[in-house]
């Protein structure tokens, strides 16, 4: 384990109904980097995030935060500086955009600080700013996804876990979303772990990537390696050797 590791899954296995969704996986997120998790459907990418967040019970292995092992409990993760933005634009549709953002900083008891962070997040996503009083169900899919990310930002995370942020978004929006992610990463030093099938969009922003297949890590690549090794095509064609 390296010193700069912020979040580290060490030999983690997860069982779903007797089937190994993750099999002794070793994945880490270092300070300030953007890491991608890639692989075909059912490879266990999302499960990695869930395991780190307490949403999937560990059959074996450990999760470490800043070098210390701990048991992830979902509602305590935000306080610890780890935020998960779940798949599928899950915003609180019956709450207004502003309220969605305020909820993101639920653990903060300081109202002024919350308001400041909400403004900051809105400034980050001008599209949301105009609609701040609207109910979130009135937003388009792309806006909802941005709202979900913005909600995560309000918590001021050290580690941001994004599960398929581009799902169901148009290419233009996807570009925007990833540009924002990069911006967050650079301006705040937030570490990002992202599960993504839209691999090409990631190329410009990721520092490192893990390739998973059938619950196992089959490759770990640097940004450079991703471009040159042809691993992306192999993932797409399903030609990974396990």
């Amino acid at each position, binding site marked *: 384990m390296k010193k700069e590791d912020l979040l580290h899954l060490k030999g983690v296995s997860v069982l779903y109904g007797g089937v190994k969704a993750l099999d002794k996986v070793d994945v880490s997120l270092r300070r300030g980097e953007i890491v991608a998790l890639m692989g075909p459907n059912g490879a266990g990418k999302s499960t990695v995030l869930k395991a780190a967040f307490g949403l999937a019970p560990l059959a074996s292995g450990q999760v470490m935060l800043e070098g210390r092992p701990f048991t992830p409990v979902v509602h305590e993760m935000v306080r610890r500086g780890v935020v998960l933005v779940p798949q599928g634009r899950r915003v609180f549709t019956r709450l207004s955009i502003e309220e969605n953002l305020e909820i993101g900083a639920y653990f903060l008891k300081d109202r002024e600080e919350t308001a400041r962070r909400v403004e900051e997040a809105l400034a980050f996503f001008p599209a949301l700013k105009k609609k701040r009083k609207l109910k979130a*169900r009135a937003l388009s899919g792309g806006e909802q996804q941005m709202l979900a990310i913005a909600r995560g930002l309000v918590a001021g995370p050290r580690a941001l876990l994004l599960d398929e942020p581009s*799902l169901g978004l148009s*290419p233009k929006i996807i570009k925007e979303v990833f540009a924002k992610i990069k911006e967050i990463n650079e301006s705040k030093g937030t570490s990002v772990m992202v599960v993504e099938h839209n*691999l*090409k*969009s990631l190329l410009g922003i990721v520092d490192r990537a893990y390739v998973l297949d059938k619950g196992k890590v089959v490759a770990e690549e640097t940004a450079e390696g991703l471009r040159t090794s042809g691993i992306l095509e192999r993932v*797409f*064609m399903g030609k990974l050797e396990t």
Partner: protein
Amino acid sequence: MTKTDAILKTKGLTKRFDGVRAVDDLSISIAKGKVTSVIGPNGSGKTTLTNVLSGLAEIDGGCVVLHGTVTLKKIRPFDMPSYGMARTFQEVRLFEQMPVIDNVLVVLTERSVFGALFERHGAFHERQAEEALKKVGLWEKRGGLASGLSYGQRKLLEIARVLAVSAGRQMDIIIFDEPFAGLFPKMVKTVSSIIRELRDEGRTVILIEHNMDLIRELSDHVIVMDSGRFLAEGSPAEVLERRDVIEAYLGE
């Protein structure tokens, strides 16, 4: 492909969820007696398409044409067999608290209330169920509850259910929604040979799948969807080489 071979066509088919167009003005046609794969990135609307075709999601616009003659604007789920269709589910929908064999037998009974109540030709059905279960290798497990099966076995049981129902009757169109996901290599082999057999019997197979190797291996024709819309179609070899298809998957 000429128009006459199309056993199933969609015309401007649309399905919305909360303002998101999961299937958007989709017009495709499925050739009779072939394996047609529908592919596309996550969230491109493939599963929604299967749900619309099987009546589990209402049609919001457009229609489905069967055998070139029957035009459907509204599909009720229990009409599926009368249209000659059967399907499996991506998120495995078994009758959990029932024995494995009953999961198969139940789909073979009379469809009418009185028919089912007084039905007594068990032996014939049991043979059909036995055959289907043996094909997927679950015959030994027939007595146990479905909930006791492993994930892969559960997927296989779904397939056995469809096999049994199509064996006795003229089920022309069989939809497999990600049948291979989460299967071990041996099971993958079983399922792909089942699909091939079905096609050889002259049935039409619609296959939703992610694994490109399997698609290449099994399908006669590939239709690509993206964001609910039709993107491309053609033989597996040509479609999978296309720039726009790869981009749809990998992003620009």
